[in-house]
Every structure is written in structure tokens, then in C-alpha cells.
């Protein structure tokens, strides 16, 4: 939120997503991380003389998928261009990108905010481009090293309209976009490792002003939290400048996450002249409508549609549906667990959702774990919920079993069996326990019969205690009342 209520913040985001293709964009080298420096390269990666780029169709299909997922127009003709600049980790001296004719235009996505559900954020364009290598300066004196493994990694650059008005908007946009690319399985969305990178264009203007203020571009934002913090810092900085009679200078600023400040990297005047021109080594990319239709038909269910299904078909609340579809792993976990519950013949998505969002997420958050790291598998959580639904154990016992599962792992059915936690529903043994309790508590029996019926709770507690919580509480109640008549 802007500190000064007289100003409106305007934010546009450029997101670079590394695509999870098997091979690199223009050659057959594997597209993978973490290998020894310069071990995943060939003459094409290294920009050797005479070698030529060959388009990876898998990348094009991923671009189409992503474009369709954000309701974008898929262009039947798009053109690759060269962006020229010298840098040691850019072996050819140019980046192959798309410039004036990108593959996707005019998309949108909807973000969920507490006070503004389904806010629309326009996506100007998505274009394909190639990633550069890495220069390594640490640990060397008087030289730098170049690792070209990343050269040729396919990227989609997803450019939003300047439709965001706060860092919260920006955070929600990034979460939604990340969820979409992960649902599509085109990108792993890992910001720390740089496979999902964001640059933010930020400006401020007085409320009601028609023209945008001068914008700055923020770089080096390696988490959603940093994006939000950098924007807030920048908004304050720009408002301070304007309030003190200065002007905002169009420039690129680098975020320093350790110091929580940004500093100027280069001004507009120092900006490169990239001398874009159409890449003569690659013919324009033409797409058939039937190909686009094929991809559309095979699109997986996306977060918004899934959330709607969870509400419409499973009766979940909008809030729960949102939480369960915010991450692909979360939705997969929930659906897997819920399937187990359904298989047990006791459909109850709400109960499953509750267990996932309250018990599981609560414990995961407390331990600083993500859903992927959950010690309790979806199958086992489903079994646990099923045990409650079928009346095998009580909710109270279930929480104990869950804690056991979380700490030591294991199958809830086995835990219940081994520890003898199965709920006693046999009326004969319950009646026996009730009779014992009544015999040993004549005073309380007298009080009850004397009209102090609230003493029943005490007696139920005694029976439960005697059965170590396993007796079905409803049956205990019923038998007690009969006996006390």
C-alpha cells in the first residue's frame, strides 16, 4: 500500500520463465541444471562459426499452452529477432528473441485479493527467447569464468500490462502466474534458482492523473517477497523525490535483498541500443489453427477452473478452494487424499479439505515445510480421514494419530490397529463399561436421578477414560441414559 494516500502506484511485471523442455531451444543439448560448468554445451551453445539454430518444437508448444492458459491470442505468424549486445556469457553476441511479432498477445489473468476478488490483470504479450550463460567472478583474481551450460535454455518472457496498483497486486499476480505455469508443467517456478524471474516496472502518479509517472525498472528480485519489498521501497523513494521537488529518473535499479534497498544500475541514456532485426537463420514461425486446437484440447485443468469445480462439485468454500489450488502440489495432494476418502465409500470433500488446510497446513507451516516435504503422504491422510468418516476412530483420536504420522510416519490404519485405538462400537462391551462406571460412582448416579442431568458429561468422561477414548461417544451417551433411565 502506498504510504501517501495522494499517490497511486502503477506496476507492470516482466516475468522470465525457464521452460522444462528436454533439450535446449536451438540444439540437442540437455536442458538441465547443476551439471559441471561447460559440460552441457555444443558448438551451437558456444556460438562457434558456421553453426545454426534449429527450433525446438516442444518449446513452441509450451508457449502456445501458456498463451492459451491466459486467454491470449496465439499468433499464427511470429518472428524471431536478434537482440545484439556484447557480453562474455552471450556467445553469439546476440540473443535470439521475439520483438515486434511475438507468439502470444492480449492475454489476461485474474488475481484474488481479500477486498477485490477476480481482479483482471492484462498480459500484453508472451514471447520466446533464449537464456544466456553465467559469468562467475567469485573466487578468481584478475579474471572471470564463463559457464555456458545455461545458454540455450528456452525462456518465455511474459509481460503484463501496467494494471497492478500495489505490491500486494504484484505478489498475487506472481503467485497466480506461477501456479499456472506449474499446472501446465512448463516451468518449475523456482524463483530462488532463477527459473522464474521477475523484473518490475514501477511508477507513481497523483490519483486522478491520466498520464503515467516516470517509471523505473527493478531487477534482481529473487522471491515474491523481495518483489513486494522492492516495490514498496521504490514507491516510497519515488514519492519522496516528487514531494521534495525532484524528478524520478528513468533507470534500471538493482534490489539488494540484504540491505533492503535498491541502487541505480544504469540510466536510460546508458541503455543499450540492441539493434533488433529479424533473425535470418530462422524462418518466421507459422502455426496451423488445427495445431493450436490440438494443444487447447489437451490443456490440463487450470487453477481457476479447478477452484470452481471444488466449489461446485465438492461444496468447498471459495476460501478453501483458493487455498487448495494456489499450488499444483497442493491441489494434487488434496485430490489424491480425497480420492482415498471417496474410495472408502464416505465421500466428504469438506472434511478432507479441512484436514489438509487446517491440520496439515497448520503443522507444515509451524515446521517451515512445504506440501512437497510433507511427512504425511496424501494417501495416508486420506486413510485417516476415511477412518473418521467410517466411524473407526473419533476426531479426537484422529488428531493423535495424525501427530504420530507426522512425527514418525506410517499408515494410520496400522497405527490405529497397533495402538488399539479403534473406536469401540460394540454395545455389549460399552454396556459393561457403563455398568462398571455407574457401580463405582453411586453419588453421581444419585445426583443425576435427582435432576442434575449435567452430571452426565462427567459420567461419559469416565467411560471414555476407562476405554482410553476408544468408545464411540454417541453410544456411550445413549447407553448411559438408558441405564440411568
Amino acid at each position, binding site marked *: 500500500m502506498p504510504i501517501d494516500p495522494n499517490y497511486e502506484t502503477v506496476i507492470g511485471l516482466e516475468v522470465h520463465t525457464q521452460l522444462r523442455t528436454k533439450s535446449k531451444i536451438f540444439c540437442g543439448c540437455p536442458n538441465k541444471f547443476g551439471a559441471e560448468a561447460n559440460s552441457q554445451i555444443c*558448438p551451437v551453445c*558456444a*556460438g*562457434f*562459426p*558456421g*553453426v*545454426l*539454430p*534449429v*527450433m525446438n518444437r516442444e518449446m513452441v508448444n509450451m508457449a502456445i499452452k501458456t498463451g492459451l492458459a491466459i486467454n491470449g491470442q496465439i499468433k499464427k505468424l511470429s518472428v524471431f529477432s*536478434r537482440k*545484439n549486445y*556484447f557480453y*562474455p556469457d552471450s*556467445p*553469439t*553476441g*546476440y540473443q535470439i528473441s521475439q520483438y515486434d511479432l511475438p507468439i502470444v498477445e492480449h492475454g489476461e489473468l485474474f488475481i484474488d485479493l481479500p477486498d477485490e476478488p477476480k481482479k483482471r490483470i492484462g498480459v500484453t504479450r508472451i514471447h520466446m527467447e533464449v537464456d544466456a550463460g553465467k559469468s562467475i567472478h567469485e573466487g578468481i583474481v584478475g579474471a*572471470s569464468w*564463463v559457464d555456458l551450460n545455461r545458454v540455450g535454455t528456452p525462456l518465455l518472457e511474459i509481460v503484463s500490462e501496467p494494471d497492478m496498483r500495489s505490491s500486494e497486486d504484484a505478489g498475487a499476480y506472481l503467485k497466480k502466474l506461477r501456479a499456472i505455469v506449474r499446472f501446465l508443467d512448463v516451468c518449475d517456478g523456482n524463483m530462488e534458482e532463477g527459473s522464474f524471474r521477475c523484473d518490475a516496472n514501477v511508477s507513481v502518479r497523483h490519483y486522478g492523473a491520466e498520464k503515467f509517472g516516470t517509471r523505473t525498472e527493478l531487477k534482481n528480485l529473487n522471491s515474491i517477497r523481495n518483489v513486494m519489498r522492492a516495490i514498496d521501497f521504490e514507491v516510497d523513494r519515488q514519492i519522496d523525490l516528487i514531494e521534495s521537488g525532484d524528478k524520478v529518473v528513468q533507470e534500471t535499479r538493482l534490489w539488494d535483498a540484504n540491505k533492503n534497498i535498491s541502487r541505480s544500475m544504469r540510466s536510460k541514456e546508458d541503455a543499450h*541500443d540492441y*539493434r*533488433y*532485426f529479424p533473425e*535470418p*537463420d*530462422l*524462418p518466421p514461425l507459422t502455426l496451423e489453427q488445427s495445431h493450436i486446437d490440438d494443444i487447447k484440447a489437451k490443456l490440463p485443468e487450470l487453477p481457476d477452473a479447478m477452484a470452481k469445480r471444488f466449489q461446485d462439485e465438492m461444496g468447498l468454500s471459495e476460501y478453501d478452494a483458493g487455498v487448495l489450488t494456489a499450488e499444483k502440489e497442493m491441489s494434487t495432494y488434496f485430490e489424491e487424499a480425497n480420492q482415498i476418502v471417496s474410495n472408502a465409500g464416505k465421500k466428504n470433500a469438506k472434511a478432507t479439505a479441512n484436514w489438509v488446510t487446517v491440520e496439515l497446513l497448520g503443522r507444515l507451516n509451524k515446521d517451515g515445510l512445504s506440501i512437497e516435504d510433507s511427512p504425511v503422504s496424501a494417501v495416508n491422510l486420506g486413510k485417516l480421514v476415511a477412518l473418521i468418516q467410517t466411524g473407526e476412530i473419533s476426531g479426537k483420536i484422529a488428531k493423535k494419530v495424525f501427530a504420530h504420522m507426522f512425527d514418525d510416519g506410517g499408515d494410520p490404519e496400522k497405527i490405529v490397529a497397533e495402538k488399539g485405538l479403534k473406536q469401540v462400537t460394540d454395545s455389549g462391551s460399552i454396556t459393561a463399561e457403563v455398568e462398571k462406571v455407574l457401580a463405582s460412582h453411586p453419588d453421581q448416579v444419585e445426583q443425576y436421578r435427582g435432576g442434575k442431568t449435567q452430571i452426565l458429561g462427567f459420567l461419559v468422561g469416565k467411560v471414555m477414560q476407562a476405554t482410553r477414548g476408544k468408545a464411540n461417544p454417541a453410544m456411550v451417551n445413549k447407553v448411559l441414559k438408558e441405564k440411568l433411565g
Partner: protein
Amino acid sequence: MFSDPANLTLANMSELLKKREISSEDLTQAFLERIEGLNPDINAYITIDRAGAITAAKEADKRLDAKQGEPLTGIPIGVKDLFCTKGILTTCASKILNNFIPPYESTVTSRLKGAGAVILGKTNMDEFAMGSSNETSHFGVVKNPWDKSRIPGGSSGGSAAAVSAGMGSATIGTDTGGSIRQPAALTGITGLKPTYGRVSRFGMIAFASSLDQAGPMTKTAEDAAILLQAMAGHDPKDATSIDAPVPDYMANLGDGLQGRKIGIPEEYFASGLSPDVARVIEDAKKQLTELGAELVPVSLPTTKHAIPTYYILAPAEASSNLARYDGIRFGYRCENPEDIRDLFFRTRAEGFGNEVKRRIMLGTYVLSSGYYDAYYLKAQKVRRLIADDFKAAFSKVDLLLAPTTPDTAFKLGEKTNDPVQMYLSDIFTINVNLAGLPAISIPCGFDKDNLPIGMQLIGRPLDESGILSAAHAYQQATQWHTRSPIL
């Protein structure tokens, strides 16, 4: 054993090899000796691969003995030093690649080797194929075998001089703005530039990617057909190579000229054409008519825009293509760089020659912000108009006839200080590249100083068969192509 392989055509040699009247090893040995004798003077080769050639020739002889020979099996050829050859120095005639040994093979040389050809060595050229006289080579000028005080043309000057001087049965060149046809004309040989995309560019060091095309340089059209057969065809490693079937060029070679319409574009016969060239082309026209062709006047009005268009587009692409020569990963690197900027600046300042630098600057300028629309974009539009002109002409005729060059070979050093005059020597060849068409230059006479003159036959896209058969018909009826310089 025989003494002079220089008098044989590639087709002759192929026949003799097949009949086992000669061995590839003897033939290769004879060429190597001739090259080693003449090269110190002519300078047609940058690298002579004696060991590799002999090994390949022995292999070829085994296949020929086993009757497994193809038309090119055992045929010794030279290739322009911009085709990457695995394990063999590939310089592009530049200091910046003076130590570059490619770890991969170009598709062209790979296919030629696969077809049995023996690579004698790598021929000299203008640095990065930028030049019309072979005077920009870091490895020295190439002399025209017909008059060693003159240029052989460029940029495939070494390839042209090698064929003319019998330093190889044939050679492979590349043509971006006339670099096969112009030197072919000036050295009295046959040079074919195929349709853009007919031959793969993979492994061919790029000058201007949208214009570069490899082709054979030979004694005859028949020889060119044999080589093109092996070179042509789609290559999955080159996205701009054309995925169309390759016709049997040899089978179509005898199609003749009877009833074929040859367009005579008036713009090529306007002022600037030397009287000798004009006279010789007039004779050729008569000859073609006698062979049954019908001559039809046509107009290519945009011809005059070809040079400025080319000198915007080709340098623009070159400025980007040559960015990779930065001293980081391969090739020349300056001594003791202070920092990365110094490394880039000095490596390139020391590694590139003046003509290459001139074109990098030209290209950088025309792509700059604020100038792009006025230069690059406009040139792209004119390029389209030039192609449209040809399309319109080819709706009326089957082929076009034009002089290859306005004049015969000029003196070494004559135009080195006047780049515009140098650029104008490609005035008749450049628009064919801009339109992506196939064209062949064949010898058609001599000037008063006994210097060869060439004419070009230009065809429709992918009609290499048409221009080869027309050239072959002409060569069957004339002797110009059989003349050799006295060395």
C-alpha cells in the same frame, strides 16, 4: 600415371577413375604437386591437406576397385576456407580465426566427402567473404592465372584461380553478392550459385545469412551438375534449407535450348558495360539463338537499387554474425587484456581487417535506433520489389541472360582505396542474391588483352536444371570454357 591433370574435366576424371585407367591416389598426387608448385605464386590455397587428401584418395581407390564408386569418388577438389572442416584449420581468411580448428564438419563438405570427393585443401578468399578482388585476405592476395598482375575476383578468388590454374578438378565457393560468379567470370571458369536454401549453410561461416549460398566452381556445366547433385538437399541442421526433392541434374543436362525463351534485361546492357564485354555477349546471344532459344527483351527496373540495398542488408547481418568473434572461446585473442572491454576492443581491432571493419560499422549504423526504418526496413522493402521484378520477368521467359561483370579483371591494387568502385564490380550479380535465384556464370569470350569474360544465366527458383542444361548446350557448341591460362 599421367602428367597433367589440369586438362581434364571432372567428368573426364570420373570416367577414367571408374574404368580404373587412373587411380585417385595418382590423380590426387598429381594435383598436390601442381598445387605445391603453383601456390607460392598464385596463392589459391590457404591450407593444403596433403596427408588427408592421400588417405582419402586411397580409400576412394578401394571403393572404386570394389566397383562401389559414385561420380565423385576419388575426385580431388578444393573448398573455400569458410567451410568448417573437422580437425582442419578453417580461417575464413581472417587473422581472427588464424588458429581455429573446427570440431565439426560443414554439411557441404560432409556430403562431398560422403560422395567420395577428396579434399585437397582450403582455398583463399576475401576475409569473411567480404570483397570482390580477393585482396582483403589476411593470407595475401590471390593472383589471376590469366594475368598475374590482376585480381582473380572475389570473394571466392582462391577457388576460382585454383580451377583456372588446374589446382584441383573443381572447387566449392560461396556467393553472397556474386562471390562465385564474378571470380568465375574473371578467371574463365564455370560458377554456379544455387537457389538460396538449395544447399545447406550449416558449418559455412556466415557473412550475410539471408544471402549466403554455396555452389560449385568448375570447368564445365556438366561438372557443376555432378557436384551440385552431391551438395544439394534439405538439411535438418539448417532451418533455411529448402525441403524439396533434388532433381537428377545429370539426367536433365541434355535438355537443350530448343524453344526456350531467354529474357534479355535491358538494364544490364545500359552504360557502364565495357565494349569488349558488350561485343562478346552479343556473340553469345547469336549463338543461343542458333541453338534454338528465343530471345525476349525484358525489364528489371529495380536493378539500379540492388547495390545500395545489398550494402545495407548484407553489412547489417554481418555486423551481428561477426559479433561472436570476441576472443573469449576460440580464435585470436589480443595479448594481456586489461579488462573485458579491452579484450573485446583489441581482439576485434587487431583481428579484423579494414574491409570487415568497414562493413561491421556500416551494418551497426543501419540497424541503430533511429536509422533502422530509413535504412534496414526500407532496404527490406526494396529487396521485395527486386524479387517481384524477377517474378514478373519469369512469367514471360524461362531464363535470363546477362553479363556477369561490367568489365574483365582489374589490376591488383587498382580499386583497394575506392570501396564504392569495388562494390560496383558486383553490379550484375547482387540482385540475383537479393531475389534468392539460381544463376550460373560461364565463359563466353575474351577481351583484347586475352582476359576471360563471363555471362550469367539466371533461372527461376529451384530451376538449377534449367540453367545447367542451357549452359551445357552452350558449352557443347563453344570452346571458350576449354581454354586455360598458360602457366
